[in-house]
C-alpha cells in the first residue's frame, strides 16, 4: 500500500516527545492545545530517586512521570477515546499501521531511539519509550512527525520495524495508538485542577521516601556521601548521570520544571488567576536552581570546578530545590482545596 501523507496533519516541534505527541494528536482532532498544557493536564511532573533500579550500573533518577503516563491521563479525559494496541507479530503491526494510514489516521508509535536512522548517531541511545507520529507513506518510507525535530522526517520501513520492536527495558512491543474520538471542546478548568491535584499528591503525599520532595532530599543526602562512599571516579560517574537524566534525556529536570511553569502560566491566563501566576514564577525559580546545580555538577565532572563547588555544596543546592518545590506544591495543594 502507498498512502500519501495526510496534508492536514500539522507537525510542531516540542521539547518532550510524549507531551509533544499528545498535543499534536489533539490538535489534529481539532482541539487546540499547547505542549505545556498537555504536559500539565497529563500530570507529567514528578521526581523519583530509585537506587535499586540501575541504568548502565547507575541509580535511576527521574524528573518526570513514568513513560506513557501523560498519554494514559489524556486517554482518560471524558469524551476522548484512544485506540491502543501492542503486537507480537511484526508484519501484523506494520499492516495495522498501514491500514490506519490508508484511513487517513495519524498514528502514535512507541519506539526505540537507537534504531531511528534520522537521529544523529551521537544522539542514538537505548531508550525505548520515544514517541512519534506516523502520518504518511511514500514508497517504502514512512513520513514521521517526530516532535523533537524541527521538520517532518522520513524513515525506511525496515528501520521503523526495528524501532517498534526494540528489545530491553520499556520494550515498545509494536505499540501504536491513535485518537478515535475527541470532544469539541475540553473542560480545561476541571482538567487543570485534576492535573495539578495529581502532581501535588505525587510530590508531597507519597509514603515512599524516594518519591517527590522527600526523594529530592534523599538524593541530596546520598550525593553528599558519594565521594567518601564511592571514590572520586565513581562519584563523578554518578553525578554525571544525575545531570544527564536531568538535562539530556527529554527536557530534563530543570526543563520539566520550566514546562510545568509554562503550564501554570497558561492556566493562570485561562482561569484569570493571579495565584497560579505566582506559582508559575516560583516554579521557574526552582527550575533555575536545578539548572544552577546542573551547571556546577557539569563543571565538577569536567574538572573545572570553581572554588567551593563541592559535593556538600551541590547537596545543599539540591535541598534548596526541594524547599522551593515544596513551597510551590503546598501552595498549589491549597489552591486545589479552594477550588469549588
Amino acid at each position: 500500500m502507498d498512502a500519501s501523507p495526510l496534508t492536514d496533519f500539522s507537525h510542531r516541534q516540542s521539547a518532550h516527545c510524549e507531551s509533544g505527541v499528545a498535543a499534536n494528536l489533539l490538535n489534529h482532532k481539532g482541539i487546540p492545545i499547547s505542549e505545556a498544557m498537555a504536559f500539565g493536564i497529563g500530570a507529567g511532573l514528578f521526581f523519583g530517586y530509585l537506587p535499586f533500579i540501575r541504568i548502565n550500573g547507575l541509580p535511576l533518577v527521574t524528573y518526570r512521570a513514568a513513560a506513557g503516563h501523560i498519554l494514559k491521563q489524556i486517554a482518560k479525559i471524558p469524551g476522548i477515546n484512544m485506540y491502543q494496541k501492542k503486537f507480537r507479530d511484526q508484519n501484523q503491526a506494520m499492516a495495522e499501521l498501514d491500514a490506519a494510514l490508508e484511513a487517513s489516521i495519524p498514528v502514535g508509535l512507541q519506539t526505540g531511539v537507537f534504531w531511528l536512522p534520522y537521529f544523529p548517531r551521537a544522539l542514538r541511545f537505548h531508550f525505548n519509550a520515544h514517541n512519534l507520529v506516523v502520518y504518511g507513506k511514500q514508497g517504502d518510507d514512512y513520513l514521521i512527525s517526530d516532535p523533537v525535530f524541527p521538520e517532518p522526517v522520513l524513515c525506511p520501513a525496515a528501520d521503523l520495524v526495528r524501532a517498534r520492536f526494540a528489545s530491553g527495558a520499556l520494550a515498545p512491543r509494536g505499540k501504536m495508538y491513535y485518537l478515535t474520538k475527541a470532544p469539541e471542546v475540553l473542560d480545561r478548568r476541571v482538567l487543570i485542577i485534576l492535573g495539578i491535584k495529581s502532581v501535588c499528591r505525587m510530590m508531597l503525599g507519597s509514603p515512599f521516601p524516594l518519591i517527590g520532595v522527600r526523594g529530592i532530599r534523599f538524593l541530596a543526602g546520598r550525593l553528599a556521601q558519594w565521594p567518601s562512599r564511592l571514590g572520586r571516579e565513581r562519584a563523578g560517574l554518578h553525578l554525571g548521570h544525575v545531570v544527564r537524566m536531568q538535562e539530556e534525556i527529554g527536557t530534563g529536570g530543570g526543563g520539566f520544571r520550566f514546562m510545568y511553569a509554562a503550564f501554570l502560566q497558561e492556566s493562570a491566563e485561562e482561569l484569570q488567576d493571579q495565584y497560579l501566576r505566582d506559582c508559575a514564577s516560583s516554579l521557574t525559580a526552582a527550575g533555575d536552581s536545578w539548572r544552577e546545580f546542573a551547571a556546577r555538577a557539569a563543571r565538577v565532572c569536567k574538572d573545572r570546578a570553581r572554588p567551593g563547588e563541592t559535593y556538600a555544596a551541590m547537596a545543599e543546592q539540591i535541598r534548596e530545590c526541594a524547599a522551593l518545590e515544596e513551597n510551590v506544591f503546598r501552595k498549589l495543594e491549597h489552591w486545589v482545596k479552594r477550588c469549588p
Partner: protein
Amino acid sequence: MKPFERELLELICTTCRLQDIELDKIGSDDPLIGPDSPLGTDSLDALEIAVTIQQEYGVRMNSENTSRVVLQSVATLADYIKKNR
C-alpha cells in the same frame, strides 16, 4: 561572522575553557554542540553555556526554546538573545 556572534563564541570558549580553538575558522552556522561541532563541546557544556547566557544576557532557554534548539549554531544563539533580551 558578526561582532555579536564573535562575542558569544569567545564567551563560550571562556566558559568551557576551550583552548587551541581557531575562532576565525568557525562559521556562524557551524554546529555549536555535539560531535560535529568544531568546538568539541557536549551536552554538559551546553548546560553551562545555557546558564552563562542567562546570567550574562538575562535570557532564559525554557521549555519552548530549549537549549537543543537555541544552541544549534552561534547564529541561532545570537538571534535568540537579540529577540528575547
